[in-house]
């Protein structure tokens, strides 16, 4: 399953809930959730742990908009909008953690 998160990890508990329920598959971080994939952010340790079971992606246009494109954690895969569509197509279902 593809799990999509769009909330900042230090403002809301959405990422925690998503990581708690996402057992395998992929996690795509978009909008304010991309901060979770940046070096030095408070959520970095839990994201690194999640990367053992999940493939983690971050939407590059949202990282660029926030001035964070050069701070992406190693192992997180940057994707553009086409990559976003591919992920949705590749997975049998998806959950958007709004």
């Amino acid at each position, binding site marked *: 399953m593809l799990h999509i998160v769009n909330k900042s990890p*230090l403002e809301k508990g959405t990422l925690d809930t998503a990581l708690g329920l996402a057992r395998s598959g992929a996690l795509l971080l978009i909008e*304010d959730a991309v901060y979770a994939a*940046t070096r030095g952010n*408070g959520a970095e340790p839990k994201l690194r742990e999640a990367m053992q079971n999940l493939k983690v992606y971050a939407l590059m246009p949202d990282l*660029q*908009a926030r*001035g964070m494109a050069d701070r992406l954690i190693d192992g997180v895969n940057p994707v*553009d909008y086409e990559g976003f569509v591919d992920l949705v197509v590749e997975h049998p279902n998806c959950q958007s953690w709004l």
Partner: protein
Amino acid sequence: MKKFMLVNRKAPYGSIYALESLEVVLIAAAFEQDVSVAFIDDGVYQLKKGMQTKAIATKNFSPTYRALEDYDIDKLYVESESLAARGLVAEDLITDVKLIDRAALAELMEQQDVVLSF
């Protein structure tokens, strides 16, 4: 003249709060009030250098923070704990700010006539 403090706690672009706050800062400046702007929690992200918003089709309003000095608004306070929790340092920010800790910010907030929250 009243002492105004705008308290920014939201990241830019994910919601409209950051831009709205900036509009109010400019309005308060036009009325020649004593304006302080505080950046706490995800609000510190509003000041991150190097924003490129073309791909999300949104206006990058961050250069405006650099222009606030021209409106005699030079009291931009960034809470150091919030900055550190996000792996950022003062050099990552688009303009000169006053880095202060939580205790000092609390004291500053107490001195205000009006506090506006964003």
